[in-house]
């Protein structure tokens, strides 16, 4: 019973509760992965080598360390844990951009700002991002990576002030995830200065989502108005006898 309640930590934001910490840096795995991610991944990529180098730096024996990652972690795979660390660490950074984002006028601008920050945080490892994405979509890892993707779009929505509590909650997050994945794929081949093409691409996608939302809301309003009118028309015809 107790165990279940620990596992079922809510997967949405609540203004009434403290945020669930994204990374616990007191843990050995996190220390090792963070060392590997910051010092070695930009050169060596998302693979075992980076973790082995980090283990050497931390005076640990790399020859017996796989067991630390391959049994009890969610993905049960060393390279995938490194990729998940990349996702979590960059998601954790978003908290720091919140105050800056709060100065922006509307929700759409804040979303654009946070997406831009998140995409640019990919830049140190962008040359290895293709392989990382390949790992993420492997069937055995897909569950973990989709979970992280949902958490990312949930965080961005929440930080940008989303208060929706109807079906829009889902559609906003789905479309945000879509925008982020498309932009990240675009980024893989982006050679422009400071990834300005990627940012432009991302802004275009957000524009599309905004337009679609406007179109949907307008259609909804029109449909509801006409439904009401029809009902009233029928009522009045019946009342006339």
């Amino acid at each position, binding site marked *: 019973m107790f165990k279940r309640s620990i596992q079922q930590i809510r997967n949405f934001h609540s203004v009434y509760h403290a945020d669930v910490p994204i990374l616990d840096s007191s843990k050995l795995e996190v220390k090792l992965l963070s060392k590997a991610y910051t010092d070695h991944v930009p050169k060596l990529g998302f693979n075992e080598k980076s973790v082995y180098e980090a283990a050497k730096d931390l005076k640990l024996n*790399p*020859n*017996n360390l796989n067991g630390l990652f391959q*049994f*009890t972690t969610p993905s049960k795979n060393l390279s995938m844990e490194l990729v998940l660390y990349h996702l979590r660490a960059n998601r954790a950074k978003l908290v720091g951009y919140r105050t800056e984002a709060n100065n922006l006028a509307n929700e759409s601008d804040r979303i654009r700002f946070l997406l831009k920050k998140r995409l640019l945080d990919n830049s140190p490892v962008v040359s290895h991002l293709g392989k990382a994405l390949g790992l993420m979509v492997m069937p055995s890892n897909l569950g973990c990576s989709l979970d992280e993707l949902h958490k990312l779009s949930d965080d961005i929505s929440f930080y940008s002030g989303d208060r929706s509590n109807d079906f829009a909650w889902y559609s906003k997050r789905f479309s945000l995830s879509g925008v982020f994945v498309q932009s990240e794929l675009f980024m893989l081949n982006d050679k422009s200065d400071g990834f300005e093409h990627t940012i432009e691409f991302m802004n275009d996608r957000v524009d599309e989502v905004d337009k679609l939302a406007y179109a949907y809301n307008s259609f909804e309003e029109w449909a509801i108005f006409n439904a009401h009118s029809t009902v009233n028309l029928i009522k009045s015809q019946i009342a006339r006898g």
Partner: protein
Amino acid sequence: MSAALRFKSGFKLNALRTSFNCSLSKRTISTTPTLFQEGANSKTTHFGFKTVPEQEKENLVRGVFSSVASNYDVMNDVMSMGIHRLWKKHLIEKLDCGKRPNSQEPLNFLDVAGGTGDIAFGLLDHARLKYGDVESTMTVADINPDMLAEGEKRCLSTPYAHSPRINFLEQNGEIMDKIPDNSKDVYTIAFGIRNFTNIQAGLNTAYRVLKPGGIFACLEFSQVEEPALDYIYQAYSFSLLPMMGQLIANDRDSYQYLVESIRKFPNQETFANMIRKAGFYVPGKGYENLTFGVAAIHIGVKL
């Protein structure tokens, strides 16, 4: 006929359930740390569902394994339908130990309760075939000379026959007086720790012999969490396994003990906490369930 049989086995199962329930309620008391920690003030321990004086358990376990040593492998295959090989393979491949080609230090493995050497040969093979490691050494420790003799016999047909890289030691896993402190990189124990008289002492010793950064890996039967599956598993293990033991090895009592000792072993969470208590750092949730929790792999790291 079959109805009568079913009734009979159902009845038996119920009887066993009751005895299991009793023992469960007993265990909630006895799992308090004192029993597992030193047992100085508690003079009895479990031997299957029986309660026996502590000093006797070692001899009783010795008796069980001496009598099953010769057809241990056949019986394992029959009872687990060959799945124990997959579990062991999974453990070895995921541990992925071995001296990497660009590394300086060879590894020192210790396989405890590894009488027949499945894990020991598997680990050495993995290191040799995947990383070209021909330097790491293996110590196989077992309390039972008959099981150890079985392993030495099997060693002759492996590439490690008469090699200085592997040595067999008759050792009590709770004490390990011939193994110095901080001397091993990898401690493995597969299907052995539940036979220890004092499990916590065994874990404390594991912590003592490992070097800082060393890894502790334990493959052991555990509890099936899904109640429906657990019912099937209990029915299978309590009704069929002792019968198979009788038919194949002509030794019902030993296999009855094996089944009962599996049931008596602490569940995943409790055992993970015992590993923590011995001083290990336990990564993640601490264990991985295999086949719905019939077996589980527990990991600990000495920091």
